[in-house]
């Protein structure tokens, strides 16, 4: 599945399958549809995804929505181009890479538009093990340890402050207290921050 036109067709048809009442989706056609039918992903007559085509459509949608989350939560892109960026992203993510993104983001369940993100193997594994969650420092439990995943801020002053405390992706971190202020340990030092900063520190919890 390397052709972008093919992927677009599978995506469109999956969106229709997911929510038949949606009005904002156009009809597929052209070269992409021809390829899809040729590969047996789409039924020639009903113009709907076949049993083999549906998981592929689901995968494209999953990548698209994860890309949206990635743009919003990590890269902090909120502008109009974000949608187009996500459209390009979904084609770049090769197989397996979307699970890494999904893990990084903490296996999100809904996209920024509030639609469900199709679950991947990584989500099922994480649920089974009950670990591997990624969440902000302020959402951790006292005593929990983890590794800083990323800093969810574009404010340079905030980033500089966090970095000055040694909070960088890859640093081991232990949350010690959540109230009245957040206390955590990094290296051999303890720090305290308020909620506004604790929200910006995204941790891959153990």
């Amino acid at each position: 599945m390397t052709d972008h036109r093919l992927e677009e067709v599978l995506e469109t048809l999956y969106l229709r399958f997911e929510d038949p009442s949606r009005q904002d989706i156009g009809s597929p056609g052209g070269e992409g549809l021809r390829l899809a039918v040729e590969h047996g992903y789409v039924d020639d007559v009903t113009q709907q995804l076949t049993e083999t085509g549906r998981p592929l459509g689901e995968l494209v949608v999953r990548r698209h929505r994860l890309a949206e989350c990635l743009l919003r939560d990590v890269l902090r892109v909120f502008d109009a181009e974000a949608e187009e960026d996500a459209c390009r992203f979904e084609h770049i993510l090769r197989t397996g890479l979307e699970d890494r993104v999904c893990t990084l983001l903490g296996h999100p369940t809904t996209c920024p538009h509030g639609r469900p993100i199709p679950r991947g193997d990584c989500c099922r594994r994480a649920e089974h093990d009950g670990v591997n969650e990624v969440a902000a420092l302020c959402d951790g439990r006292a005593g929990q340890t983890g590794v800083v995943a990323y800093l969810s801020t574009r404010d340079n002053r905030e980033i500089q402050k966090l970095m000055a405390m040694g909070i960088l992706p890859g640093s081991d971190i232990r949350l010690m207290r959540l109230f009245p202020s957040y206390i955590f340990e990094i290296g051999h030092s303890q720090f305290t921050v308020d909620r506004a900063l604790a929200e910006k520190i995204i941790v891959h919890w153990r």
Partner: protein
Amino acid sequence: MSLSTSIRERLFPGTNVARSAQAPAAGPAILLVGNPNVGKSALFNRLTGQYVTVSNYPGTTVEISRGRCSALGADVEIIDTPGMYSLLPITDEERVASDMLSGADVRCVVHVLDAKNLDRMLGFTLQLIETGLPVLVALNMADEARDLGIKIDVARLAAILGVPVIPTVSISGEGVADLVAAIKKTPPPSPFRVEYGNLIEEGIAGIAGRLSAGTVAARARASLLLQGDSRERERVLQEKGDLETARILQIVAATRTRLNHSPHYYVTLALRARVDQIVAECVRAPQRAPNRFRAALDRLCTHPLTGYPIVVLVLYFALYKFVGGFGAGTLVNFLEESVFKHTLIPWAVRGVAAVVPWAPLRSLLAGEYGIITLGLRYAVAIVLPIVGTFFLAFAVLEDTGYLPRLALLVDRGFKKIGLNGRAVIPIVLGFGCDTMATLVTRTLETRRERLICTILLALAIPCSAQLGVILGLLSGSGAALAVWAGVVLAIMLLTGFLSAKLLPGEQPMFYMELPPLRLPVLGNVLIKTYSRMVWYFREILPLFILASVLIWIGQITSIFQLLIRCTEPLVRGLGLPDQAAVAFLFGFFRRDYGAAGLYDLHKAGGLTVHQLTVAAITLTLFLPCIAQFLVMQKERGTRVALWIAAGVFVTAFAVGWLTHRALLLLPWVLG
């Protein structure tokens, strides 16, 4: 004097009142650079002994200490730079440090770091090495690292970095001789460089090609430009002119657009990755066996259920019992009654009478408001013991590491009045001396916070001298004490709340390092207390004497009487006797001076509980003392200082008047 200066700089970094603003001396200098809280200034004191001068960095209020080390020769200057976390400055102080690195004739840079936290500190070392300056690393607090069982392969670290690495303990002096010996040899610049990844490296190479090397290597300067350092941009603009700078900034912009995050982020990540490698090679830290007792105590201090009661207990014993009871009670009584009233003053009055024939001069020295009888007595017998006990209590709290814990407990509350938990340090210090506390507002991050804190200190925080006297005055009536505390607290909260609402600016952000709780070392506590008392005394004694002289002049020329007559209607409006006008006039010089005047009046039996309550509230809120006004003017500017003073004046009398009327309507409140 120089010794206490250097100690003071260590106690309150950047809080000195400037005495001189000389330009930096020419000649090769040795720069001490490092994070805050790594013992850098202590090391500086070790290296320089007493030969220290403190001065403003030209054009700023940031102060730097310079000194000479006898072992290195008289022409070599050692400079203690303000603490900084990385080469990319955030605060004014860090900007000064970065200027010094790129400007002056630098012989070598000594990077002082905390040996316990190499992983956090080495990134800055790598940045310093990349500047191309000769760098030495002082692994300070080596003893604490040893105690934690951390083993550092010093030789290996030195080999990797290509610079001398010397373990030191600045508190005890261990390793300082080795450091001096290493400085003497002046190491060559190290060839060590960090690889920042293709995109960044391309940008750096492009920019560096257009820069001349200067003191700081072109590569380091290019990296700073790329990371958006405005200071470096100004320097390039000066050197290269508009056109060339624009070309360089184009490269910066082009590199930035190719990255998701700022280049600063990637540079820091790359530094961190390299540091992690180095630490993995050179440092072995054991699985920590935490000190159970210390950890439990820490939990108690920070747990909301136990933390707040502990705050109350600490404040009760440290402020009320020790400062209020012992300082303002026992010590003041002893000094006032036994030393001054029964010994010194009669002796002085007799002595002056015998020696000085001229009556006006006699009254200047030992009259009712004389220098000895009033100025010296207030300063030594009333103010000194109170302030001294406060500084002692504050130094103990500071050295135990309790204050940051206090800060995290109050942060949420302080946010409501436009401050963050960090402001607890100037506010608590304000209960000792508002003037000193106003200087310490420098440690707050935004202008808005500094302004709000200054207003609160000027208006609602009584200093220890004032507090001691007022607690003494009102101690007879619990209800009066409650009314006083309630009104002052309400005004403080209201003022903070309104300031937070009305003043524009960004929301405060709270972040702080929590040093481990430890038992304070008696010697250090005493040195701190001593040097703060010296500072305080030097500050206030001249003012007290000046006040005596002014009052004396006023009396001879009848201006004093005139002023008293002008103040009387105001005082009468508050329902106070005319004599209270004298106390309020004193209050113009210092609030504690005014409170002490009230104390005299009360002892003569001149005031009812109602009057005492109103007078105490008005005086607490009253115009800041002259010293504080001068500091406000220095720190916040004349216009702001005048506005604050006017606002405080009006508020104090308005609130005093309202309290007076309210108590008239509700006489049962005071029983």
